[in-house]
């Protein structure tokens, strides 16, 4: 408990003791009457003075209709009714104030606890860096460390700044950033990212970014600013609370005055006492705290729960949009596929496989194209540049070079045709590099991008979650794109698109959708910033360390597993379901109690129980958003 909470707890205890003591004071006699009134006054003020004070201050400030006012008017009214009635039993007013404060205390503790459990998930802020200076270790705050400094990271410590390993090797736990529980091995030359935890060995790291620019700062900034983008449900709650309290106060006033007045006009008994009491009960029930607390708390828990799995959502509005995604559009390369090209098939024609690879690798020796890199990898041996002469690049066709005295042409089918050759058509889909040696066709290499192992599961999970349409957009050839689409089970594929073609394609898809349905675009954040911003919700994938993606996207998936997209949708669904549950539950119970109170079926005791009870249940329900069940999830220790 905090200091404030302890103080309130002590006040509640004192008032409770006084309250019980009052019950033992017998009736009769002026002395006893004064004693009882005095003790009641003491108990009431002890437990409720801050409520009364805030209500009074509110009257002079801009926030007149606060719950403090509601409570003050209700309890004060009960006291006046009792005094006017000639009694001296003020236990009802004291009990109401007491219960209200117990509720407040409980709520404060519950909210504090959940705040802590949520922020603990986000506790990736490194406290210190061990700066290496002339062989001495100095512990400093990470935000003062300049770029290029050497820092020491011991096992168990958080990596304070982005950098690369100069010496040492270790495993690092990236789960706080990616949700991935399998530790990553790092050795000399590897980059490390701030916010991860060093597990096994001591590392010396040369820093490459200042603290303010480091991954951990970027992520913390994102998390802390998440609440600035409010969802419609939160706006609704805020507006609701704004109009609700004044409305209740005036209804209570009407309830106190109108029925007795009407009754008096009709010649009956006015019964002001009864109706004022009902109006006061009405006020007690009406506190809107269950709603105003639980809705933002649910969103925060949802954002926190997603964050723990490496899904960073930039605001509760995006959480809301995600939950209504009906069309999921994926970029192909790097998102559904690894984005790394590999020679998938070698089809020599009249020469050996090795010879074919040798010629291809040497002809492409100067090329930086990813295709060339994949051929070099497939060749697997170092190339001998001395053998290569007269390399001629033919843009859009390929390369012709003289290798070891032979003229080697490597390129697409067009190149073969210009050489008067008829290239083979391989069965396997991918980019084909044909090779001709000394004017004779010698076979081809099929190079393809590998589909990510989880891509298929990701799309079927999305379908299972009710995402009606999955679409692949790509700049690649139709044949390749369709093969990938069939492999992962996508509903639609649009191929051979230029970057602005992707925006157009998304716009077409948007125009085909019904109102209220949302479109998500998932890309790797490279070259697709315009599409990310055009979609209702832009999701960037594999963003660990990529600033551009973090900037452009609304949702950032920290690692490059497309299944995380389905998780994000699932988490958002659950979160929104809880929000609606709480809104409906809180309003329904309140309305029912208000009705019962107005008709005289609920007294102030019932009212306060309804108020505190609903609040507690709503808060407990909100906390559920922190955890979304997943089958086959690796349990973290």
């Amino acid at each position, binding site marked *: 408990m905090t200091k404030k909470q302890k103080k309130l707890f002590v006040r509640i205890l004192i008032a409770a003791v006084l309250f019980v003591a009052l019950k033992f004071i017998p009736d009769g006699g002026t002395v006893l009457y004064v004693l009882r009134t005095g003790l009641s006054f003491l108990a009431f003020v002890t437990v409720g003075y801050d409520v009364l004070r805030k209500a009074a*201050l509110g009257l002079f*400030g801009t*926030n007149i209709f606060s719950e403090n006012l509601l409570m003050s008017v209700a309890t004060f009214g009960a006291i006046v009714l009792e005094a006017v009635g000639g009694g001296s039993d003020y236990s009802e007013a004291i009990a109401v104030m007491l219960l209200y404060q117990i509720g407040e205390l409980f709520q404060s503790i519950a909210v504090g606890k959940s705040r802590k459990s949520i922020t603990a998930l986000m506790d990736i802020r490194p406290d210190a860096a061990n700066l290496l200076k002339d062989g001495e270790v100095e512990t400093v705050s990470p935000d003062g460390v300049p770029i290029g400094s050497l820092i020491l990271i011991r096992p168990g410590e958080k990596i304070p700044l982005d950098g690369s390993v100069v010496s040492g090797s270790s495993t690092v736990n990236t789960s706080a950033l990616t949700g991935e529980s399998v530790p990553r091995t790092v050795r000399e030359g590897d980059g490390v990212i701030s916010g991860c935890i060093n597990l096994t060995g001591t590392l010396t790291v040369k820093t490459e970014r200042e603290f303010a620019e480091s991954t951990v700062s970027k992520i913390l900034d994102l998390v802390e*600013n998440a609440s600035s983008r409010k969802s419609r449900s939160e706006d609704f709650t805020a507006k609701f609370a704004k109009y609700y309290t004044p409305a209740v106060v005036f209804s209570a006033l009407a309830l106190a005055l109108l029925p007795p007045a009407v009754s008096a006009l009709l010649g009956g008994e006015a019964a002001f006492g009864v109706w004022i009491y009902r109006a006061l009960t009405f006020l007690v029930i009406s506190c*809107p705290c269950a709603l*105003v607390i639980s809705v*933002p708390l649910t969103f925060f828990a949802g954002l926190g729960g997603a964050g723990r799995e490496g899904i960073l959502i930039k605001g509760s509005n995006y959480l809301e949009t995600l939950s209504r995604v009906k069309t999921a559009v994926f970029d192909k390369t790097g998102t559904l596929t690894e984005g790394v090209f590999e020679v998938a098939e070698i089809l020599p024609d009249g020469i050996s496989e090795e010879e074919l690879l040798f010629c291809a690798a040497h002809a492409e020796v100067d090329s930086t194209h990813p295709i060339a890199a994949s051929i070099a990898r497939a060749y697997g041996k170092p190339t001998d540049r001395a053998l290569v002469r007269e390399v001629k690049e033919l843009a859009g066709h390929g390369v012709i070079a003289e290798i070891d005295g032979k003229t080697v042409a490597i390129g697409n089918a067009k190149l073969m045709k210009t050489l008067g050759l008829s290239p083979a058509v391989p069965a396997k889909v991918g980019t084909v590099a044909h090779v001709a040696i000394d004017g004779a066709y010698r076979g081809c290499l099929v190079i393809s991008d590998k589909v990510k192992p989880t891509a298929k599961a990701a799309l079927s999970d999305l379908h299972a979650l009710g995402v009606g349409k999955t679409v692949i957009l790509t700049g690649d050839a139709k044949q390749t794109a369709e093969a990938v689409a069939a492999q992962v089970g996508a509903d639609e594929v649009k191929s051979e698109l230029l970057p602005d073609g992707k925006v157009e394609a998304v716009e077409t898809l948007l125009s085909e959708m019904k109102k209220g349905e949302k479109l998500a675009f998932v890309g790797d954040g490279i070259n697709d910033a315009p599409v990310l911003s055009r979609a209702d919700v832009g999701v960037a994938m594999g963003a660990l360390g990529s600033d551009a993606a973090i900037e452009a996207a609304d949702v950032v998936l920290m690692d490059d597993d497309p299944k995380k997209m389905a998780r994000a949708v699932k988490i958002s669904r659950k979160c929104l379901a809880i929000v609606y549950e709480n809104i409906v539950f809180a309003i329904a119970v309140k309305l029912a109690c208000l009705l019962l109170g107005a008709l005289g079926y609920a007294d102030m005791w019932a009212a306060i129980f309804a108020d505190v009870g609903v609040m507690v249940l709503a808060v407990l329900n909100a906390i559920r958003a922190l955890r979304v069940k997943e089958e086959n999830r690796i349990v973290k220790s």
Partner: protein
Amino acid sequence: MKKIYSIEVDCANCARLMEETANKVEGVAMATVNFIAQKMTVEFADGADEKKTMKAVFKACRKVEPDCEIEF
């Protein structure tokens, strides 16, 4: 200029009121209150004095929520 301040506020509704109030203070371009994180993010208008503005923000917030605290 954008700064984040630690705040102390007990209820979500009060946090909302503080946000509303802070936004009306002169020198504040935009203010957001994160109740759960107990943080207030203030973006100052060009040329606004941070200390002076925050004093005004604090004073205004105290009017709507007498118990609130802002560390600045």
